[in-house]
């Protein structure tokens, strides 16, 4: 059950999505996703977990509009993605999806501020500098804006990555193993930031991980195995969401 009781259309609406990769000369087919259906609503904090090879990376790529399904439909913010051209996909990525990568993927020669400005450059955003500064302040890096990635710790780099992802106010923050390369202290810090963004700023978060304790921070855990959803559990929320508050 979605955590939001209102009737808004889901931000992410995946219907019977399959993804088949053809290997070699096309004789071998690998079914990475097999009839997956998921709805994710505004403001949710969802973890997608599964072992390596379960199809979670494929699912993340499709949710992030880096790839399109072989069959089935996928709507993000009501827009059908599966038929989009490369350019439209790039457009959706620039406006609706904020990526946080395992290996932060910052451009090494740009300052933290310039890295955060990068996605806005492709989306023709105004006031880029101001927005980037705000985003960096939000992840408590206001004093590190002019540092290059190599001058920052792993946790700080990942915080720049998060700032870069949320600076364009995406429909969904998509984090792929965001703590995979971090030690325990930094992991806790990053997970706290993500939680705060979800709880306090109402940002929809999807975390893809294979670590149970990372997934445990989410309100809803979707488990994938062999390309299929084998469980979809929602924890009772300790806080009321925005929707619930409005309902009171």
């Amino acid at each position: 059950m979605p955590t939001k009781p209102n009737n808004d259309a889901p931000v992410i609406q995946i219907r019977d999505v399959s993804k088949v990769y053809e290997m070699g000369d096309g004789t071998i087919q690998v079914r990475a996703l097999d009839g997956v259906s998921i709805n994710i609503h505004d403001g949710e904090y969802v973890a997608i977990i599964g072992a390596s090879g379960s199809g979670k990376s494929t699912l993340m790529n499709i949710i992030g509009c880096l790839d399109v399904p072989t069959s089935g439909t996928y709507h993000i913010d009501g827009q059908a993605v599966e038929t989009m051209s490369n350019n439209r996909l790039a457009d959706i990525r620039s406006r609706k999806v904020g990526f946080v990568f395992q290996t932060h993927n910052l451009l090494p020669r740009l300052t933290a501020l310039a890295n955060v400005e990068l996605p806005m450059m492709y989306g023709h955003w105004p006031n880029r500098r101001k927005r980037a500064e705000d985003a960096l302040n939000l992840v408590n890096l206001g004093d590190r804006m002019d540092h290059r990635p190599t001058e920052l710790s792993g946790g700080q780099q990942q915080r720049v990555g998060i700032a870069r992802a949320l600076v364009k106010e995406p429909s969904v923050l998509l984090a792929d193993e965001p703590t995979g390369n971090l030690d325990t202290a930094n992991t806790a810090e990053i997970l706290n930031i993500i939680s705060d963004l979800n709880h306090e700023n109402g940002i929809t978060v999807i975390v893809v991980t294979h670590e149970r304790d990372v997934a445990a921070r989410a309100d809803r855990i979707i488990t994938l195995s062999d390309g299929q959803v084998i469980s979809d559990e929602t924890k009772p929320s300790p806080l009321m969401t925005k929707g619930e508050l409005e309902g009171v």
Partner: protein
Amino acid sequence: MSPLDIIRTSIYSLTANRLRAALALLGIVLGVCSVITLMSIGRGSTDRITELIQGLGSNLLTVIPSGDPLTLTDVDALRDPLYTPSIKAVAPQIGTFGTIHIDNNTTQAAITGVTPEFLNVRNLEMGTGTFIGTPHVESLSEVVVLGAQVSEDLFGNQDPTGAEVRINGRQFRVVGVLASQTGFGSLDDQALIPITTAYYRLSGQRTPGGDISVDQISVQARDVESVDQAIEEIETVLRLSHRITDADDFTVFNQQEILDTFEETNQTLVVFLGTVAGISLLVGGIGIMNIMLVSVTERTREIGIRQAMGAKRRDIVAQFVTEAVFLTFGGGIIGVIAGLTLATAIDGRFLIGTEWSTRVTSNIPVIALIVSIAVGLFFGIYPAVRAARLNPIEALRYE
């Protein structure tokens, strides 16, 4: 992506590997530099040839025999204003070679027998003394006017006027020295004597009819406009006097035609030089493409990141093409400066004291810059499209 962002991004990328950018640039620099230098040498030589030939006077016509000899009778006929109103002056010449010596000095020179008209017809100027006069011609005087080089060879810097020299054993008195000339058909290495003296004393070939034959007749038309008319008059007169019914036994050369021929030849040379230089520019362009392809492979992950951040294919293409154009345009600018410097240096170093000079017309640098931009576009497109076609998922995974 706005143009400013594209430029900023390209500069960011180029400064990442300065040495490599500089080396890629060097190919273009050399290409453009050689284009500029060779073209300006070519233009310079065109100028020089034009100048040389025009120095002769563009209303000068030359008649040479191509069958029966031309004779003094022909010359007299050409001088008749009734038949040749467009002709201002006629100067026949007899040419031979001779040894000129004074007491202890000898030189070889072309000895040309001329008439007084020769001075004006050929636009000559006297250095010292006087030219051959009508009395000299009439009395078969043994007088000589020396070319500047001949005079220097024999007398050094002294004025030889009045001195006696021996030409092929005969004693001649020097009456004057021609001013030094540069140019096509310079007479510096010649000695001029009266045409009658040349005929009767030095060479002497009579025609079967007993007439005096001449080797060449220089004809000066009244002005440049009447050149064509003068040619017709010469042809009419000579055909009549030679009783020609079919093929002419003489040929009339027009200075303008010679000029055109030379310019055409030289133009071919300039185009050839330009092509050679253009090939080096092409090689530079291939170098750029090579560097850009390496760069695309190396920066696969960066491209993946940019794609994930929302970069469209055209953004990626724009970024890489702009990088290539920056390289070639930068190389073009440096190449133009280097080429202009080199052309000037050639002037100052190798061509100093000569009448030669390189000439840079303002369109050469402009064309070179446009071409270098075009080279960047042409050779940058393929690597850029390769970059834009990368699959973002694979690019992000690239190590």
